[in-house]
């Protein structure tokens, strides 16, 4: 590969793709401007032998499929986009409803690709791609055990809120329909009208006589608020008396009334749809003279088995279209129809808990990152004690399912019309309602880190702390790598693991050493050493083995009760409150690990301190840093003292952050017995090493692993030519970058061994100040 513009992480990604056991080759590596890179990976798809002989499966998947990965310039902060060849059959389930450069986009995972990337690395993305292709080839993307995947409608602008269970309850054995009231707000945009509406519960008598009083578009300042009807239709039975069942998955393709009729025909309810559309025409021809109104149609499609996550086999497919008054009023076949997203209504339940705080003191300035379930809960806990965050950062919007655990509850009035508002705004409102004004930043925390100006606004240097409750590994990496002139306040991280079995709180040390990234690596080391915490580390591996493809492909939902989440959120709130009252540690960083016992009731926390880490830089890279944890540092010092007058060494263990370009050396393993020490060189032996590394890696669930080697220099000398030669041989043997750490009397230095770094060594794009 010629020296190209892409960053080292992309260079490494290309190497990794080629190493995937199902990838035969990569081709067409092209720069896509601004450091972005596009690569085509040729996947070997394991077809059943008869199909392999034919070169493709009956479902149109070839024995060799070219998958395109488009890496953005800020990879690995953002994930590569994945697309298939242009003529790949789009009528597969688990296919995105949109194209990318004319190419179909597979939906390979039930979580956003960026989350998969940060949880399992690019290997996880590649593995999911391979599994997706396998299932597409065998037409097994829909798994009856998992359930029918509803037609993808999650990227639609128009939204209909309706009680799904109530709608399904309307469906009878015979073909039929009902009219329900439809209340909506409509916004005119440059792309046309966008509607957010709520379908009522009680059927209405839709007659000519009621039309004049019932339909009411009310123009407001910016929006139209209106009342109209929602037509719900469902299929009946075949001539043979069997229920009409739609076995075929087909992506949403309705754009007009004709298309809606075709869709209804597939579902088996075209007769009812036709008669009711003409009824709407006739009814409105007489009595209605107002502004254009929006009408909703909900097709109820009967599937062969239950839908994912629910017991019913009825899929709800809502649409909206507009009619303007005319006499006579006609709804021609070409009338535009827009598929709408369906949001379920909320069943009101008690989500809120009261916790008092009668302590009164000055409100401290602090910034909360993440207004999700943990963030909102902690914010409200603290708001109730008079210590609400003064700044809140979050770029996501509220959805009905968030209500299951989010601290905020919706309002009774116009409840269903208020979804899609930003979490940060709603949280700011709630905090303000408790008498504590806050500033909201509807932005991605990563975006803030990239600008000094935005940093100053979001977390002034005088702030008490920045509390990261995003649960996002990429945010952790960005904060960890942010220099102190961008991010002066210490970072406190709050996170849950393994479906709420474990919780983690870390607090950075003075001058942000240890950093939030150091503390995470140390937490892994603590868990590896504590039998009752070790399961926390095994999550990623288990998910790799059991992850199913896409459950509706919407958002990943951690299965956990509100109470479980609150157990941790309460502790986290208390931990913050305690430190606000009594101050942060002046000597060290802190790690608090909580675990729920097998009784599901007891929550036990342990608290550990981490002294500042030793910081070094490799001699052959401007961008990588070395951070040696105290335990490893002390072990190295002991080993050097035990071998006066000769060079000695051993194996280093820890983790690599590709995003923050950091090696965290958490532990060292002893040199094998067949190592050779002399005044001029140290030769690391091999006896027993492979077994030792395997046990160490497995014990830590591969969160901590061999990073390379360390050895001592008797003087403060730079790496020798021998060291450089060894680094080169190490670089070729592994996919992750390796480190040859050198302990000199004047501190740590070393060599990064990385096949990618030799071609590319430039500052990370997200971290402009990471220079000499």
């Amino acid at each position, binding site marked *: 590969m010629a020296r190209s513009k892409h960053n080292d992480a992309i260079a490494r990604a290309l190497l*990794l793709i080629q*190493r*995937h*056991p*199902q990838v035969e080759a990569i081709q067409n590596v092209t720069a896509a401007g601004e450091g972005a890179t596009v690569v085509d990976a040729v996947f070997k798809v*394991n*077809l*059943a*032998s*008869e*199909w*392999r*002989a*034919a070169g493709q*499966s009956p479902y149109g998947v070839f024995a060799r499929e070219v998958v395109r990965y488009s890496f953005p310039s800020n990879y690995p902060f953002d994930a590569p986009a994945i697309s298939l060849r242009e003529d790949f059959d789009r009528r597969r389930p688990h296919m995105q409803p949109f194209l990318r450069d004319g190419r179909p986009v597979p939906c390979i995972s039930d979580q956003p690709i960026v989350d998969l990337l940060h949880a399992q*690395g690019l*290997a996880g993305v*590649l*593995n999911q791609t*391979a*599994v997706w292709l*396998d299932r597409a080839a*065998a037409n097994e993307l829909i798994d009856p055990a998992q359930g029918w995947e509803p037609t993808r409608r999650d990227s639609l602008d128009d939204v209909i809120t309706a009680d799904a269970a109530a709608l399904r309850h309307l469906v009878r054995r015979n073909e039929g329909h009902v009219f329900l009231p439809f209340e909506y707000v409509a916004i005119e945009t440059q792309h046309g009208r966008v509607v957010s509406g709520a379908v009522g519960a009680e059927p209405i008598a839709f007659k000519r006589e009621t039309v004049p009083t019932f339909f009411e578009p009310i123009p407001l300042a910016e929006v139209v608020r209106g009342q109209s009807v929602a037509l719900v239709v469902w299929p009946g039975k075949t001539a043979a008396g069997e229920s009409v069942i739609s076995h075929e998955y087909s992506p949403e393709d309705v754009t007009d009334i004709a298309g809606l009729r075709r869709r209804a025909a597939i579902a088996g309810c075209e007769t009812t749809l036709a008669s009711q559309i003409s009824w709407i025409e006739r009814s409105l021809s007489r009595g209605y003279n107002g502004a254009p109104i929006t009408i909703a149609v909900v097709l109820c499609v009967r599937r062969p088995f239950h839908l994912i996550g629910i017991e019913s086999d009825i899929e709800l497919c809502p649409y909206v279209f507009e009619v303007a008054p005319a006499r006579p009023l006609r709804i021609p076949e070409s009338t535009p129809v827009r598929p709408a997203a369906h949001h379920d209504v909320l069943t009101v339940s008690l989500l809120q808990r009261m916790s008092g705080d009668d302590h009164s003191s000055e409100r401290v300035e602090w910034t909360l990152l993440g207004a999700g379930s943990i963030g909102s809960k902690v914010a409200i806990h603290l708001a109730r004690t008079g210590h609400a965050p003064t700044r809140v950062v979050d770029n996501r919007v509220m959805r009905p399912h968030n209500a299951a655990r989010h601290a905020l509850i919706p309002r009774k009035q116009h409840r269903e019309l208020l979804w899609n508002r930003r979490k940060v705004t709603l949280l700011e409102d709630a905090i303000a309602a408790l008498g504590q004004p806050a500033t909201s930043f509807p932005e991605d925390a990563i975006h803030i880190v990239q600008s000094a100006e935005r940093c100053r606004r979001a977390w002034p240097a005088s702030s008490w702390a920045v509390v990261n409750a995003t649960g996002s590994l990429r945010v952790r990496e960005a904060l960890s790598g942010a220099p102190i002139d961008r991010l002066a306040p210490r970072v406190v991280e709050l996170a849950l693991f393994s479906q709420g079995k474990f919780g983690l709180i870390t607090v950075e040390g003075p001058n942000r050493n240890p950093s939030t990234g150091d503390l995470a690596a140390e937490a892994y080391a603590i868990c590896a050493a504590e039998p009752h915490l070790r399961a926390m580390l095994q999550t*990623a*591996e288990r998910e790799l083995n059991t992850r199913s493809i896409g459950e509706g492909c919407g958002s990943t939902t951690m299965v956990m009760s509100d109470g479980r989440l609150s157990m941790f959120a309460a502790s986290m709130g208390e931990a913050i409150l305690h430190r606000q009252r009594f101050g942060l540690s002046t000597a060290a960083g802190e790690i608090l690990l909580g675990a729920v016992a097998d009784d599901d009731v007891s929550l036990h926390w342990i608290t550990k301190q981490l002294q500042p880490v030793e910081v070094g830089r490799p001699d052959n890279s401007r961008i990588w840093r070395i951070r040696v944890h105290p335990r490893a540092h002390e072990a190295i010092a002991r080993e050097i003292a035990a071998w006066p007058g000769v060079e000695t*060494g051993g*194996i280093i263990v820890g983790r*690599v952050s590709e995003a923050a370009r950091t090696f965290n050396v958490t532990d060292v393993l002893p040199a*094998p017995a*067949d190592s050779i020490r002399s005044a*001029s*060189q*140290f*030769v*690391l*032996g*091999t006896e*027993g*090493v*492979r*077994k*030792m*590394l*395997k046990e160490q*890696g497995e014990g830590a669930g*591969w969160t901590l*692993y*061999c990073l390379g*080697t360390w050895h001592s220099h008797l003087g403060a000398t730079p790496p020798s*030519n*021998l*060291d450089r030669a*060894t680094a080169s*041989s190490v670089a*070729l*043997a*592994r*996919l*992750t970058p*390796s480190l040859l750490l050198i302990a000199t009397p004047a501190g740590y230095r070393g060599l990064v061994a990385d096949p990618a770094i030799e071609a590319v060594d430039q500052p990370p794009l997200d971290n402009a100040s990471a220079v000499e």
Partner: protein
Amino acid sequence: MTATISFFPVGNGDMTLIKLESGRTILVDIKICGGADDPEDTKPDVAKMLRERLTRDADGRLFVDAFLLSHPDEDHCAGLRNHFHLGPPAEWAKTDDKIFIRELWSSPMVFRRASKEMTLVEDATAFNAEARRRVQRFRATGGQVTDGDRILILGEDENGKTDDLSAILVTTGAVFSRINGQMDSTVTIRLLAPRPKSDDAQEEDRRVKNQSSTILQLAIAGGGVAAAGKFLTGGDAEVAIWESLWQAYKNQTDALKYNLLQTPHHCSWHSLSYDSWSEYREEAEVSEDARNALSQTLTGATIVASCNAIVDDDNDPPSFGAKGEYEKISANANGEFICTGDDSPEDPLEFEVGRDGIRKKTKLLGGPAIVGGGAVGRDPLPHG
């Protein structure tokens, strides 16, 4: 639900695990040495790979439903005593945690005494002792045996020593579905060899070596479809056996059909020819009948040679010449030939039997592959 067939990376040797849709497991041969028992050995730890694929019973014992020793050569039974429980079930000990064999599948060879032609390694002797123990137990209890005492004899003994054992005997040519005493609807197995004794003294002679090898054709259900995939496994059977099979089945070739073939004797030339590969090379003559017996491919059939990487030399097995023959056979079926030593020397080569047939299992990239030690621990690393 799918069935799986796993070929473990044992170099020249056989070790194959079949997991049926019913959940039952059939292990054919083992070769567990080096890696598993010596931490410094760099061979793949096949014992660990096997154990990861098995489940434990209510008593906490890892088990296989059936273990078949195709014939008593070391490269088919190495590690039996170290890794498998032999002896009465009650003597299984948690501390040893050995794999429990619910039912032993043995050839009638166990009734013969070791002879000059047939010296047995210790693991093979131990297998024979265990088989005889189970037969004795069957006789003593009048057939009322349970897990760990069950045995199935594949093929009748020519000297009549199996005559009173019809309840646990499968005669050559028969089709059976009984595994560990129960009917299993997810598989039917045809016992193709050992072949009955021949009257032709010369032919009988040729069979002295590897003559006893068991040959099975397994019709395995996948995705709820019966016989979705056919797997033919041939132990170390040599050319005379395959010739005799062709003569027996040339008018009933269904019995020899396969989607997946495990080449006999680690891709040995002697399964296809009487000539020596190293002496005659390309001049060596292939037996038409033996080749026919091994060519009953179904469309797209895969042929697997469980052996070291095959290079163009005089070695046998694996033989470069045999590889060429198998490549031709698979190419005629639009299929493929895979050598475990070339394709998958570190991990098991695995296949899945689904409703659409047999396909190679997709490999994923795991943590160890990405972040393992790399060069560290493999070679001495000098530092200046």
